[in-house]
């Protein structure tokens, strides 16, 4: 087995473990750490598929920004102070059954499809991706930029504490 194959296997295992920790543990801080681990694993899978730019983006955006923002939100909303209320067993079982059913159905569809597996080829370097972004997909690129600006302004507006005497917008 090649080095890339081993990296892929280890990354996939890390992603699965992280996802299980992110969903299964009760402490929300541990969930966020598991989420960061899962995203590291997904970035490793991207890297072993040859998409090293995407791997870097996933580490930067998810591990670097999203996980930190989640920690801030948890610190501002103190969910650990809430008394623990046990979840009803049938709700957990129902959620697990539905999720397992959907995953099994998806896997069945994927197994039935006859993928014509081609040899990985073509240029997926960061330079090629950037060129496509600024030529063929420039409208999508600009729309995402506008969406991000609007979302950041909206986030500030929503989370901003209305100061007494100045009214709220």
């Amino acid at each position, binding site marked *: 087995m090649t080095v890339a194959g081993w990296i892929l296997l280890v990354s996939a295992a890390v992603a699965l473990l992280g996802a299980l920790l992110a969903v299964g543990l009760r402490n929300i801080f541990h969930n966020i750490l598991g989420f960061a681990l899962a995203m590291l694993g997904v970035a490793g899978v991207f890297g072993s598929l040859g998409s090293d730019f995407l791997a870097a983006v996933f580490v930067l955006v998810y591990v670097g920004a999203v996980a930190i923002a989640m920690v801030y939100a948890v610190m501002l909303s103190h*969910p650990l102070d809430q008394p623990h209320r046990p979840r009803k067993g049938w709700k957990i079982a129902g959620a697990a059954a539905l999720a397992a059913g959907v995953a099994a159905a998806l896997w069945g569809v994927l197994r039935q499809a006859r993928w014509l597996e081609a040899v990985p080829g073509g240029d*997926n370097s960061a330079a090629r991706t950037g060129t496509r972004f600024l030529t063929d997909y420039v409208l999508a690129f600009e729309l995402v930029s506008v969406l991000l600006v609007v979302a950041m302004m909206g986030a500030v507006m929503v989370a901003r504490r209305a100061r007494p005497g100045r009214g709220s917008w």
Partner: protein
Amino acid sequence: MTLPLVLGLATALFGIGLYGLLQRRSLVAMLIALELMLASISLNVVALTTFTGHDPSMGQVVVLIFVGVAAAEVAIALSLFVAIHRAEHDIDVEHLSELRG
């Protein structure tokens, strides 16, 4: 061999995320589960464009747009959670059953 492995991983991540979205009650935990599902979709897109003969940079463009939209979604959602906590002192979805201006 690689393609089924990645597709299987994406399916498993999607299932785990769906379970978390249904089972957890904290809004932050539900957001984490949602992000896992989004990441599994990104995995599918990259694996399929890499291994089925399409232009792989196309998949990267699509996933980068996903990442941008997901970042916007996280920013809005987290600020909403903070605002909800300020108003209700709780971010448990089973307690947030009132809509009031």
